[in-house]
């Protein structure tokens, strides 16, 4: 495993919804090394304030040397990212952490809630590099409103996935929780991969445990280094020991995580 401190160049930035952006960066070293579920630390801004890099999942990595980030503006760092324009540079550190472990055969179900959808697109792309039917890659997307997932649902469909959606306001797909969509598929699944709010992932981990379906979950934690050096990103593990999201994760088998903390 090798990580790089790479000065990437912005190729494009698209606004997909109100506060949702997709950023395409030329970062050949990171693009070549990246695996689905891994993340980068981005130095948003060029001053000492904000000081720390921000972690973002790798949304897509292409052999052409580009990577994509999908991000939601929630504070100062992400706001600075949204102001980037083509040609400008962004210092990245990555690829970092452990990505998704995949079974030899499907079907697979990818479940993303909100901005947690970000790493799943890269995962689906890699999974579908081998010719597989849509049923082998079920994608369930949840968000507050249709606006946040309309474009992404289309992208997953075009990739060749079977897509289901759920929204809190009922403006697209199922009116309710995305985890409500999982049970009908469970009996056939070889594995579930999920990223999103902790409550959503805990619910999904529970459903998977009850039916003995392996479940991989991508977690978040506040980070300073992303390298396993600061020990700031600890979360409680099921074995009673702390785990470091940047090094042991961000993707954990659901059984490794203490969900009720």
């Amino acid at each position: 495993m090798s990580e790089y401190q790479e000065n990437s160049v912005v190729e494009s930035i698209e606004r997909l919804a109100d506060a949702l952006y997709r950023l395409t960066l030329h970062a050949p070293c990171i693009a070549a090394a990246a695996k689905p579920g891994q993340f980068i630390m981005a130095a948003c801004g060029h001053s000492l304030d904000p000081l720390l890099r921000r972690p973002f999942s790798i949304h897509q990595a292409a052999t052409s040397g580009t990577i994509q980030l999908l991000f939601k503006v929630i504070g100062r760092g992400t706001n600075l990212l949204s102001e980037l324009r083509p040609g400008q540079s962004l210092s990245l550190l990555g690829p970092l952490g452990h990505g998704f472990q995949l079974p030899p055969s499907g079907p697979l179900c990818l479940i993303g809630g909100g901005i947690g959808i970000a790493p799943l697109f890269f995962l689906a792309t890699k999974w579908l590099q081998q010719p597989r039917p849509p049923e082998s890659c079920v994608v369930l997307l949840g968000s507050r409103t249709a606006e946040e997932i309309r474009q992404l649902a289309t992208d997953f469909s075009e990739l060749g996935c079977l897509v289901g959606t759920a929204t809190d306001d009922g403006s697209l797909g199922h009116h309710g929780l995305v985890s409500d969509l999982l049970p009908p598929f469970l009996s056939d699944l070889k594995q579930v991969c999920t990223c999103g709010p902790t409550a959503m992932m805990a619910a999904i981990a529970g459903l998977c445990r009850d039916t003995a379906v392996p479940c991989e979950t991508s977690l978040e934690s506040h980070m300073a280094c992303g390298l396993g050096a600061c020990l700031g990103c600890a979360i409680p593990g099921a074995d009673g020991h702390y785990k470091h999201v940047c090094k042991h994760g961000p993707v954990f088998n659901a059984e490794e995580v203490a969900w009720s903390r």
Partner: protein
Amino acid sequence: MEPLIPPTDLDLQVAIGPLRLANPVMTASGTFGYGAEFANLVDLNRLGAMVVKGISLEPRPGNPPPRIVETSCGMLNAIGLENVGVKRFINQKMPFLRTCLSRVIVNILGDSIEEYAFLAHELSGVAGIDALEINISCPNVKKGGVAFGTVPEMAAAVTQAVKRETDLPVIVKLSPNVTDIVAMAQAVEQSGADAVSLINTLIGMAIDARTRRPRLANIIGGLSGPAIKPIALRMVWQVASTVSIPVIGIGGIGTAEDAIEFLLAGATAVQIGTANFYNPGATEQILTGIEHYLRQQGETSIRAIIGSLRLGV
């Protein structure tokens, strides 16, 4: 641009008591892991020294999350001294560290004088360890939890106990959370410390107004990063002006210019902490920047600038 003086003609060597360093750029404890974490990003043969994460006798789990929070030009941490314990450190971390040319300094911590002494004893025979740094910013459990680093007599007692157990050079790392840091430095100097390093983090706090909760699970934590540099610089200058043992400057150093300011104030070497997080290449960049500065100033030896602060008119 051709350097005025070729790099090989620059003498960057400094001495921390009996310990010779190839250059004055070190990493600060807790910000560089056990070295290996940065192996792909930094040339671990090029640094003056690497100070590893603080080691205690038994492994420590650390504090519940959240453990870190960003603040203006800085960060607060309440890691809770999570570490693998001295046995696993020696068996699992030292083999890699021995392969690096940079010097290795082991930061130790304990909750009693006996624990510090025992750690010094355990680490003394281990090949590849060049010095010990004593973190005295820890509560003395037997003395009602008062930090060793805030009472001169307690700091002196720890220093003496460690010195008795080891022939390795001993650096005492001072806490800034005291009324008179010079008194602390003098106390450990008199007790045989080979050098002092300063500063450790300043105790601080952050609150989320929306949720009305502290941002750290531990409520309070240690402030580090550029925000603390002026305080660190002042303390280094005061201590370096008073004691005769070498002073290692720490606190908010992120650029070569920052490092040089500490050297001018009297530090013999510097440690880079939080900067490793936001700029993993910081240590090597600072080293290169110091070389550049020496050439610009027409100096051939780093020792010519140490303590060369100009005062008066």
